[in-house]
């Protein structure tokens, strides 16, 4: 549980924004869409892992 996950998400966001812009400039609209989608899914999985960890921890603490 470190701060680096924040930086990771921010970096992935920056990277997908830049890659999407470049691909859009070169006229590859559909690849740009897929690149953006891939970045979104990666970040989504990271955040979902965090949420799942939190829920399981709460479950053990409050003995549901």
């Amino acid at each position, binding site marked *: 549980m470190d701060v680096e996950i*924040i930086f990771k*998400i*921010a970096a992935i966001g920056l990277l*997908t*924004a830049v890659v999407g812009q470049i691909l859009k400039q070169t006229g590859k609209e559909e690849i740009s869409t897929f690149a953006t989608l891939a970045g979104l899914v990666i970040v989504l999985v*990271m*955040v979902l892992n965090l949420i799942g960890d939190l829920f399981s*921890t*709460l479950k053990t603490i409050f003995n549901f």
Partner: protein
Amino acid sequence: MDIILKIVSIGLITCLATLVIRPLRNDFAIFIGIAGGMIIIFLVINYFTGVLSSFKDIISYTGLNSNLYTLLLKIIGIGYLLEFTAGICNETGNNSLGDKVLLGGKLVIMVMAMPIITNILTIIMGLLPK
């Protein structure tokens, strides 16, 4: 004092990161916010277990039924979960969804607390003169 420094710095870092990312990609800013909140909660969640164990000691001194304590614990846990989920819902712009999550959780808490309320009522009824 170490932990408070950590919490403050993580909050500030999360704020600045969302500020940088928001004009580029709005959806990633929300994810950064969620991740920052998670990290802060994971930092302080160990204190919570300590508080709960001391609560358990206090309950054992009073000689109350331990079922009541577990029920109370569950209700507190539901409250925290609801607060967190509703916060995420509100942050993504779904204010009405957050309200519905809160409403559903309140109803569940009410149903869980109903046995205690009926218990108290029956005790009061027993105390009343016939």
